[in-house]
């Protein structure tokens, strides 16, 4: 028996459902998760080695190319992943539309702001322009 497709050929090609959204959220959550496996393990090991270090040692360490790169990648992956995850938590538990929308916007903007602040701090230590 032939199956009659319910969607138009164009609709099938675009692959979006009624929410007008594809799998970007799900997919980016996984990509950032995979990135965070080595990044977070590296970070924990780096922090263990820095226990008790003074301000100058930390600045010298961040100034090296590898730590600076890894920290920037860690910040991007962490706050992207957190933003996606917190959005789902909000969407699951908050049912008042206006509150939900407001919280999702606050989380999204907050994650961007924190990621930018962190990256600026790393880069300022890496290129030595701060005090």
């Amino acid at each position: 028996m032939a199956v009659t497709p319910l969607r138009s050929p164009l609709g099938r090609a675009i692959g979006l459902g009624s929410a007008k959204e594809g799998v970007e959220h799900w997919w980016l959550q996984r990509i950032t998760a995979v990135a965070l496996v080595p990044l977070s393990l590296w970070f924990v090991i780096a922090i263990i080695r820095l226990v008790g270090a003074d301000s100058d040692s930390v600045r010298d360490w961040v100034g090296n190319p590898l730590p600076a790169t890894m920290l920037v990648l860690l910040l991007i992956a962490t706050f992207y992943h957190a933003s996606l995850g917190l959005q789902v938590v909000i969407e699951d538990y908050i049912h008042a539309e206006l509150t939900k929308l407001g919280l999702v916007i606050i989380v999204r903007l907050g994650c961007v702001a924190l990621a930018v602040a962190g990256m600026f701090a790393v880069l300022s230590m890496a290129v030595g322009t701060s005090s």
Partner: protein
Amino acid sequence: MRSANRPLSPHLQIYRWQLTSVLSILHRAAGVVLSAGAILLVWWLVAAASGPDAYNGVADFLGSWLGILLLFGWTLSLFYHLCNGIRHLVWDTGHGLDLKSTYVGGWLVVGGTAALTLIAWIAGIASWAS
């Protein structure tokens, strides 16, 4: 038969908890804790970039009992979310979704979290003492 007294499902007061559902909600809770902990990471980096006074303020806080408690909670949440996240990634490939595998994987996650947290703190204390 009155329908008003029927329990709702899942009725949390009489719900029989299982490993799978507990680990599921803990994954989400750990994610929220880690999001809050990420603020600490940014605070630490910004303080280090700002200079010794700001950095010493953060270092003093992190060295206090409250700071150490927060760091311990952060480490525990990180290793749990990491181990269980890998379990989720395996599920995404379509493997390990039968009842037995979900329990074996769940206990592996619990053991892995405990082991990694313990190793990290022993290494951290050794690094601090040296």
